[in-house]
């Protein structure tokens, strides 16, 4: 600790010498970092590593606490709402589709069976041809059943705000189709009690064929059409600017939003509000330095708006004119932070490597010989964890990730690494780099909190220049669409015999 004290006094001295010329700046005081156990910290939630606690408590800790508590409330209320509303919609959808499916499947069978029930004596028995048609009806119905199960009866991956237009259209088409077949059947066959049973069987076969074709149409509309990439979507997170690009086909806005969110969970680094406090404190300091005085006195109500406008303009002008050296502070702060992170990382890597050398995997024969000191992975992890705990905790606090990892999760990950023969470097990888959101616990996912904000209707298709927002609780994803350019390829033929070379000349001639 004596080294830390010296470091701290050096920082203080440096900051004071920098700021001696400017009286308006604050003096940075490095508060001695408290070091509780990791367990306590996870309970407390977000601990802000704040150097300027004397000046900026209201600006910095206020927002982070506020957002966390709001997050909790919203999450609880949303969970209550969604568990009721979503299930209702989903059950309705499932019920409707099951009813439609039953109607569709039983119709051909009904067509075949009804004549036998209603006018069995008048029916002309048909021989092998009919039996062949029966077999084909049976197999086609089986294929249709499997195909519908494969395409439609999958667990839904998302709950969309509006109905899925193509599915609704297809369902309507199938319903109309089946109804028209029933109408024809009812009028021409039931009423007139047709005796030609073969004709009836062929009619049923044609219905099943047409259903298979409708299923083909469903595959093309629902699955194949959007496979060919047509638009390139640029997704930017509003808080820290992380950007990704995705190529999608012709989809409606709500379906594109689902695809983007599925990719968001694996591509974007996890949202960390603790990393944004620095810029917020800088912004607060900009405004805190200026004070506006109204020398014209009170009582000018009509011109209040005009005065407010001129006041804000005066503030902007003054802010632009004053010699603001916050860029200098930012540079030194970032350099210092970088140095600190690297030092802590070096200590962490060494501690973990050393910890891993303390345990060794037992071979089969050894297990039988010495059953005394045998530990399972969980116990082994708990045994070596204390030697690296302090270094790991300090590193996480420096990089502001301590709220993403609880002690339990770290021990679990350690046991997992030991079981799978991972090296210390492989174990540390998930702590040294911020991974995608899926890597962290389920409470970070907030998968039910997304709102789609769009000026165009969400069931309309994507167009070049469409912009929509996907809002989560404290950040949002801004999505812009661009059409993938039409590529015109030209061809140029090179004769393989045309590759010829010659030496470069540098001759000198005397004259």
């Amino acid at each position: 600790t004596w080294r830390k004290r010296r470091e701290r006094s050096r920082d203080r001295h440096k900051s004071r010498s920098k700021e001696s010329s400017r009286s308006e700046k604050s003096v940075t005081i490095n508060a001695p970092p408290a070091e509780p156990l990791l367990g306590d910290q996870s309970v407390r939630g977000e601990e802000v590593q704040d150097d300027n606690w004397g000046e900026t408590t209201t600006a910095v800790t206020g927002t982070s606490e506020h957002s966390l508590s709001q997050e909790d409330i919203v999450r609880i209320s949303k969970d209550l709402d969604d568990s009721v509303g979503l299930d209702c919609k989903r059950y309705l959808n499932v019920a409707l589709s099951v009813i439609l499916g039953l109607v569709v499947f039983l119709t051909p069978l009904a067509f075949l069976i009804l004549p036998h029930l209603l006018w069995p004596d008048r029916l002309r028995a048909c021989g092998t041809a009919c039996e062949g048609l029966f077999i084909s009806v049976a197999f086609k119905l089986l294929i249709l059943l499997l195909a519908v199960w494969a395409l439609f009866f999958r667990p839904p991956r998302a709950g969309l705000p509006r109905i899925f237009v193509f599915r609704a259209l297809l369902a309507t088409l199938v319903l109309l189709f089946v109804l028209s077949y029933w109408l024809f059947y009812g009028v021409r066959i039931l009423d007139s009690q047709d005796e030609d049973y073969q004709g009836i069987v062929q009619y049923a076969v044609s219905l099943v064929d047409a259903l298979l074709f409708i299923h083909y149409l469903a595959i093309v509309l629902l699955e194949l059409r959007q496979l060919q990439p047509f638009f390139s979507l640029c997704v930017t997170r509003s808080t820290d600017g992380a950007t990704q690009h995705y190529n999608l086909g012709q989809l409606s806005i709500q379906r594109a939003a689902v695809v983007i969110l599925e990719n968001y969970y694996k591509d974007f680094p996890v949202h960390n509000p603790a990393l944004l406090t620095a810029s917020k404190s800088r912004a607060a300091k900009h405004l805190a330095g200026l004070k506006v005085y109204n020398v014209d006195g009170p009582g000018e109500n009509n011109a209040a708006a005009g005065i407010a406008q001129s006041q804000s303009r005066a503030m902007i002008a003054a802010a632009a004119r004053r010699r603001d050296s916050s860029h200098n502070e930012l540079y030194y702060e970032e350099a210092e932070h970088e140095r600190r992170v690297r030092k802590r990382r070096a200590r962490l890597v060494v501690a973990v490597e050393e910890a891993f050398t303390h345990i060794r995997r037992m071979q089969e024969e050894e297990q039988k010989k010495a059953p005394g000191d045998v530990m399972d992975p969980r116990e082994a992890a708990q045994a070596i964890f204390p030697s690296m705990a302090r270094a790991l905790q300090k590193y996480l606090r420096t990089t502001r990730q301590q709220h993403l990892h609880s002690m339990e999760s770290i021990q679990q990950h350690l046991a997992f690494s030991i079981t799978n023969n991972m090296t210390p470097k492989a174990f540390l990888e998930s702590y040294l780099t911020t991974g995608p959101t899926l890597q962290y616990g389920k409470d970070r996912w907030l998968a039910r909190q997304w709102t789609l904000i769009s000026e165009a209707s969400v069931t309309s298709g994507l167009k070049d220049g469409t912009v929509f927002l996907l809002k989560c609780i404290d950040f949002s994803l801004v999505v812009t669409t661009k059409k993938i350019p039409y590529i015109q390829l030209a061809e140029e033929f090179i004769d393989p015999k045309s590759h010829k070379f010659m030496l470069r000349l540098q001759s000198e001639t005397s004259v």
Partner: protein
Amino acid sequence: MLTQRIEIHKLWDGDNLILGFSIGGGIDQDPSQNPFSEDKADKGIYVTRVSKGGPAEVAGLRLGDKIMQVNGWDMTMVTHDQARKKLTKKNEDVVRLLVTRRSLEDAVRQSMMQH
């Protein structure tokens, strides 16, 4: 572009007429190898060697001069062999060269600055 006119009288050396210098460059040559040119893409004819006491040195030709014209013929866009031919015509015994050299420009600029 400052130029200087140089008149060289050819000398009989056995049964050849010589001028006493060597040339390099040409539009069929590699200009990046030229040590005398300022612009390494310049494919003009440069003087690469001046023999001591020869007619060229006596007439005032210097190492590194760029030959712009020979007896009125342009030398800035010719092949190496064409340049050689223009300089070694058997029926001429005087060649009038129009040359340019960096030191000329420097000298004039210096004298202009002094005034």
